[in-house]
């Protein structure tokens, strides 16, 4: 191994941070694997939890928004499918965000005893959310088969939107996980925000019900663009993509990623003193 001289000094930025991050990729994989491996240990129905929760929410939302409130669907898509296409990215985003935000505190034992680029921890927890997502894709297939609804070519772009949802959760996730170390208030605030977010984001309804003049404003919420993207991709042409809004959401995602990474990097070194 090549000899590197390392200088430790107050307030000095790590010179080799990104290279270190790459060197510790094995740790990233193994932490992600650990989280997945122990997630459903000692539970009765195990992985079924990943399927059950979004499925039940879908039924409730379809009844409340589709049947009772009689909100319109997109094109000819069944309402349940519209809801589920919104539930998927929302569940992915919210569980990745909560996981990442709690992760630093949960690993304080590790942080106090060994060095590694701390960013590995919150990013590794995101993998768990991704695995749950992949499992719940099977329900999507089942619901689509039930309604005999065939997706268009747009479905091929789904992976791109999945990556986008993950990136959208990593930014705020990093930021909140760093804040959580200093101010434990965020532990109580975040579940509340996520709960509200479920109704603020177009999960149970189509974003086309938003009056046209407010639609761009609504897209400041990055999840609006991502959920619209998922619907466009899954429902095919039935749910056209509102491009200016999507671009705005994308910009907000990038901004939060920058904010999260830079705030995390700035406070990372004092984590061990805050435990």
């Amino acid at each position, binding site marked *: *191994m090549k*000899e*590197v*001289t*390392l*200088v*430790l*000094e*107050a*307030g*000095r930025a790590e010179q080799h941070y990104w290279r270190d991050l790459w060197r*510790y990729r*094995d*740790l990233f*994989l*193994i*932490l992600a694997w*650990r989280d997945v*491996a*122990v997630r459903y*240990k*000692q539970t009765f129905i195990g992985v079924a939890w990943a399927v059950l929760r979004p499925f039940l929410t879908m039924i409730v939302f379809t009844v409340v928004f589709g049947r009772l409130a009689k909100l319109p669907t997109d094109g000819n898509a069944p309402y349940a499918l519209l809801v589920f296409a919104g539930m998927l990215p929302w569940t992915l985003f919210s569980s990745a965000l909560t996981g990442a935000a709690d992760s630093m505190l949960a690993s304080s*034992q*590790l*942080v*106090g*005893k*060994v*060095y*590694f680029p701390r960013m590995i921890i919150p990013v590794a927890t995101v993998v768990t959310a991704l695995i749950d997502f992949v499992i719940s894709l099977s329900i999507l297939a089942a619901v689509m088969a039930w309604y005999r609804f065939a997706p268009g070519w747009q479905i091929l772009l789904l992976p791109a939107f999945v990556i986008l949802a993950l990136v959208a959760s990593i930014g705020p996730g990093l930021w909140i996980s760093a804040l959580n170390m*200093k*101010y434990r208030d965020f532990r109580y605030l975040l579940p509340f925000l996520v709960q509200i977010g479920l109704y603020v984001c177009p999960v149970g309804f189509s974003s086309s019900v938003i009056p046209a003049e407010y639609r761009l404003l609504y897209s400041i919420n990055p999840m609006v663009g991502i959920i619209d993207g998922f619907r466009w991709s899954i429902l095919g042409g039935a749910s056209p993509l509102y491009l200016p809004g999507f671009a705005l959401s994308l910009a907000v995602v990038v901004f939060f990623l920058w904010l999260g990474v830079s705030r995390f990097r700035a406070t990372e*070194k*004092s984590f*061990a*003193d*805050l435990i």
Partner: protein
Amino acid sequence: MPDVVIRAEGLGKRYLIGHLANRERYSALRDTIARGARAFARKTGDLLHGRPIIQGDEIEEIWALRDLDFEIRRGELVGIIGRNGAGKSTLLKILSRITEPSVGRVQISGRVASLLEVGTGFHLELSGRENIFLNGAILGMSRAEIRRKFDEIVAFAEVEKFLDTPVKRYSSGMYVRLAFAVAAHLEPEILIIDEVLAVGDAEFQKKCLGRMSEVARGGRTVLFVSHNMGAVQALCSRGILLSAGRLLAEGSVSSIVESYLAGGSHSVRSHEAPKRELSDSLNLEKLLLELNPAAIGGEVTFAIEFTSTESLRVTDLSILIYSELGVRVAIVDLRMASSTHRVSPIEPLKISGQILDLPLVEGTYSIGLFIACGELRGDFHELTTLEVIRPTSGSELAPYASRDRGFLDLRSKFHVG
């Protein structure tokens, strides 16, 4: 290649701690509200400036380390010695990059691996095999490296039969052996070790010491912190003595151990352990040994009290007795065969008992505790001391000096012819 692998210049680490101002025994509601309002105003200020929130009314600055200058050369085995609170752990944390210094700088050449605790990151639900990979990765090994050394690690830990059992079913001995085995197969250029030898049985400790000197012979630099002066002397060639965050002396290990011991006898020691936090929830309220000083062959009464903010089971508890050199002389095992000790917010855990016919040679012994309680599992050193003195005897012979008589005062008889 540079000969100096670690160079510290003016190194210091400052912590801010908060404490409660002296409060009157009975405070009026008005005072409480005023204090609460002041604290809230301060917290708001901290939040706005992005500073961490510190509990308490007054904030004090303490220097865990101050003005440290030293150099460590390639292939050196350096023991870092000092009493509790001298700053040893803080120094190791800075060198292992866990925390950053407040002032000064350190220059390190080469890959560092640190072992501040055995079994860091072990997950109880995972099997031994899985934990080897997990722990190895946490300590900085690549998967290929772990795979290459896997058999060696397993053989060293002697856990072949239980590789696929979750480690929560392991005995504490197996757990520690496995944890150390992974760590012992690290191959960094600089190895930093904190007190890990205080685990396992004597044979395993010997094996660990052997493994460490093997590592050192391979031309690596080793920094070693321990309370066990015997182990430090056996392993290290140079020593650094810290006291209250400052470097008191450095030089050959024997001279450093000597000044450590000399310093010890002058410092004031209390016989009652001060209240101490053992974990987030568990507190040691009292650890009292009486009579203290005790007489050789006499009886020592002990009393221990724990309080806790949550309901806990204390599965293992022992009083540890160390010699001045930090060698473990004896323990008092306080486990119960039929049940476990319990402690809860309403009911503190109080244990009292006697050590009968104290067989120790006169001198000062350091008293610690070994506790296993949920997540917490480990030794707590230098909680109090036990002074043993020789009662005036009717014997006509003057006794040999205590340092020549080992640890135990044996009762024996003999006849001639």
